[in-house]
């Protein structure tokens, strides 16, 4: 199994996290996303015509899209069936719903980070405002979950929904987005970093 990986990418970090959580041996191929824009090169477009990372190669097939890779890995390699709870349709529905939410976090919080860190030319005020709107929703949701005794986004155990949402929320500070206003998000981040086999990525401030 091979992950086409960029060290500063939150979307690649999602995959690295789940590979470690599931203790799956794999190799990584470093992609020069910045400054080389290798993901837009002809060779890489053969692998993913969308010109995006991450891509996972497994059993001779390429799987693209961070959320899709998470679903694939959990469905195929999680013997406990908890990360992608296929046997519990109502929980599964909630997980899928928050996977779509994770994509919206990418288009806002991740965009602000690309602007501030790597100099991408985009409307950073709009990206930050969009992220704050989503973080308010996530914070309220996590606070409600806690009131019902649930520590995680979709229920009582972590799922791919948590893995999908975590990186760009936890890395928001890189893009000038303060997490100060979101106490339930901060508590969730602290629980997440204490998961077994969790590995930190630069930009995540665990002392918040």
């Amino acid at each position, binding site marked *: 199994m091979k992950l086409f990986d960029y060290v500063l990418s939150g979307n690649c970090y999602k995959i690295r996290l789940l590979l470690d959580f599931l203790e799956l041996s794999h190799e990584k191929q470093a992609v*020069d996303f910045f*400054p*080389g824009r290798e993901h837009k090169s002809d060779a890489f477009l053969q692998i993913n015509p969308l010109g995006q990372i991450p891509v996972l190669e497994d059993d001779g097939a390429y799987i693209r899209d961070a959320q899709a890779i998470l679903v694939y890995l959990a469905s195929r390699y999680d013997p406990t069936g908890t990360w992608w709870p296929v046997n519990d349709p109502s929980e599964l529905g909630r997980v899928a719903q928050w996977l779509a939410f994770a994509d919206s976090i990418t288009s806002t919080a991740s965009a602000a980070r690309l602007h501030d*860190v790597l100099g991408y030319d985009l409307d950073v005020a709009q990206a930050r405002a969009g992220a704050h709107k989503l973080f308010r929703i996530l914070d309220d949701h996590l606070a409600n979950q806690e009131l019902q005794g649930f520590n995680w986004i979709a229920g009582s155990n972590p799922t791919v929904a948590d893995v999908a949402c975590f990186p760009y929320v936890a890395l928001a*500070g890189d893009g000038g987005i303060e997490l100060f206003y979101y106490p339930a998000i901060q508590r969730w981040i602290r629980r997440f970093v204490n998961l077994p086999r969790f590995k930190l990525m630069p930009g995540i401030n665990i002392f918040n």
Partner: protein
Amino acid sequence: MTPDTFTRSQWYAIGRLPDFEGAEAKPVRLLSQDLTVSDAAGVLSVNDADGRSLLTQIRYGHLWTTLSDTPRPLYDMPEFDEPDRRLVTVGGVGVRCSGLRCVENFLDMAHFPFVHTDILGVEEHPSVESYDVSMDAEKDEIWATKCKFFQPMASAAASGGQMTEYKYRVPHPYSTILYKTCPIREDVWDLVGLFIQPVEEDECIVHSFILVFDEENTDTGLLHFQQNIFLQDRMILENQVPRKLPLDPRWELPTRADASSIAYRRWLKANELQWGVALFNEAA
């Protein structure tokens, strides 16, 4: 504040060469001024907001420019001409603090075990042994030598922990170069350096490079190693208060481990550098 003479008289890297391929008046910000870079059939030119053409030179994999008509010469790094060395230009990373703070952080070995845990340092070996700091009066630059630090993974080519020997050089208020023991060759140094583009007094873009002997890693592998390290620094740098560099001795209490930082601050003061410096009476 307009930049002081020392700041204004320097050359500044404003990007890697490929960053300007086919550029048509690409905007670049330097010392609180809007500049543009254009590429006319492979010849790069830089203009200021009034259309005045600025001096340029291409060196060390980057395009350099200056606001001065009579700049101080750009410092030499003869290692760039040595055969077999690999150059990786890491790309510009934006940081919300004075570029002077980035230089100072780069010189500070005490943060290795805590910021670059299990890569450039381990928490069990936090102490900084004493090292020598000297001024090269002729070239007007600072050298810190005989720096030693235990590093579990000193570079991408390292296969295990080693006592790494370092030399630091500050030849420019916004540049610093690290010379470190090469893990695979004797009697040579690997270079890692920062070319900082001061955007505002409290904001900068850090262009960095690696110039190493390494037969094992791909360029992209070296790039990832360096970017990962620098993003660890970035978070610390953005949390420093104030964002400009405090030069007033009433502000911070230095220790022996900060000898290179003390020399750097003295040197900035001796050259009457003011732009990017926090004033004590402005303190929060």
